[in-house]
């Protein structure tokens, strides 16, 4: 259950970063377009977050079920992020921040225990 939530959280973070890497959406959120470097970093972070989610999902449930879980949660978090954009963009951003922090914290505390 916790792993499932971490996968969801990391995928959500991934979409937040990938979306903010797009000039148009960066402007909507921060008022200005991102510098090339910043946009690249955001995009890289986005891909890394979902890659991490996939690795965790596969370690948790095997390559077949893990991949299905990862892919399903990737789609759902995308829909969640985009649905929040017109209504609660700031909340969506904070949620990404909290999700990222919480999953990092959970991973660090887990890694010393059972997961890896």
């Amino acid at each position, binding site marked *: 259950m916790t792993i499932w939530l971490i996968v969801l959280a990391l995928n959500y973070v991934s979409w937040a970063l990938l979306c903010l890497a797009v000039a148009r959406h960066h402007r909507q959120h921060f008022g200005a377009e991102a510098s090339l470097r910043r946009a690249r970093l955001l995009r890289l972070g986005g891909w890394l977050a979902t890659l991490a989610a996939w690795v965790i999902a596969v370690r948790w449930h095997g390559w077949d079920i893990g991949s299905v879980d990862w892919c399903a949660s990737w*789609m759902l978090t995308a829909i969640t992020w985009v649905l929040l954009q017109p209504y609660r963009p700031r909340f969506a951003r904070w949620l990404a921040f909290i999700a990222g922090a919480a999953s990092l914290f959970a991973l660090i505390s887990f890694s010393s225990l059972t997961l890896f």
Partner: protein
Amino acid sequence: MRGRFVQSMAWLHTWAGLIVSWVLFAIFLGGTLACFDKELDYWMRPVLHQLAPGPIAMDAAAATLREMAPHAETLYLNPPSTRDPSIRGFVFEPGEPTMYVALNPRDGTLIPPTAGGNFFFILHYNLQSGTPGVYLVGLAGMLMLLALVTGVIIHRRVFKDFFVFRPQSGGQRAWLDGHNLTGVLGLPFHLMIAYTGVIIMMSTYMTAGVEIGYHGDLAAYYEALSGAPHPVEQHRPPSRVASLNEVLDDAVQRLGGPVQYLEIAHVHDASITISALASGNDEVAGGRRTLIYDGTDGHFRGESASPPAAYRTYQFLSGLHRVQFGGAAIRWLYFLLGAAGCVMLATAAQVWIEKRHRQAVAAGLRSGYGLVRALNVAVIAGMPLASVALLWANRMLPDNLAARADWEAQSFYAVWLLAAIWAVLRLRAGKPWRDLFGTTAALLIALPVLNALTEPLSSLPASIADHDWVLVGIDATAFALGFGFAWLAWFNTRPRKNLRRDARTRAASASSHADRPRERSA
């Protein structure tokens, strides 16, 4: 050249989509609810909610099945699982329809039948209408694949508009954004579910392989797939019959995990054989190990060969669709993605009518446009109402009613029919969307109350105290969904923005469309 190609794809997307959209919506909603079919079954069988702990009465259950179907050839018994505490019995009797019942796991007696979550499952794959229904669902699935592929082709800004959703813009723009959002971001799921859905029933509508390889003998085909040779009949009754409880215990021990079902073949012959399939819910493709036991004395005969690779591939694809693996977490993801698919279809139907808003107003209700609008309300708002009505009927109908399960199903159809009639009657002057969504919301929010009144021992507080999270989940989900439908009803109460804006939008359309390429999506 490309322009013409895209245009013809847009035409295909529009019309291939429209003609099956209502059927597809019913299939999608049925499938979404069927993600939790066993959980709904459990909710709808209150007799199972207060089971005392104790041994599993497999033998008593088999005796009940034998009594109900004295000439049965094959029995299947599913032992209780984490999702469903009942014993499920399937009976195959030559010349009789397949019987499917739930049995009490403590004494093996028959549990009064209910339409159950299984109703939605059957609705999902054959619209409750047998083989013709399977063909119709297969056709709808193929057209859905077509609509998905053409949808990607005509949506020229897939990546540019990936994160774009503009509900405030009103009218067709908002509906189209909603359609693209659920369609594009859920695309891998929709493609997978449509493709595997068509594949599951493949041997029903693509019979060439069986015709050529097995000379049309379906039984031989299935036997080859099963990997286990059929026992040779000996034409004399068995001297004795092995204990299923002992076989089950032995199988669980040998497999090191739960058993999906016990199959008892040749029930009345000395060649009686019991097979135990591993549940295998830790693999997408499901269990692959089958243990075989002698049906007379229950001794272990050996393990059947693993299914051949081609069949294992089929099992993987069908497993991907049926989501019996991985537990509740993944079923929730499928449930939500299925709901996104319902939204994709519902918004598609709205896009179609919004795009033709002026013609629709000019043509009036006695026209094709009126038919589409009526069908939209009747199906998209009517079916959720009918589905909740099924749960209400389960709790409201008297316990001693004969054929109670049929009455439950009839309530579903009756409520849907009433909803459709209401939709047609109120389309001209009223707000049928609001009426039907509002009623659905009220019934959903009141469902935990109804449950507490009719089954006090299974009420929400009682189930929380019992840590019965399946019951808690269904009551709480119904309650939460109720607020979603209340929002939909409220949404449809507001004056139609685009009606008033229509003249203004048209006047300003030249400038407002200047910053984006001409919209081609249907």
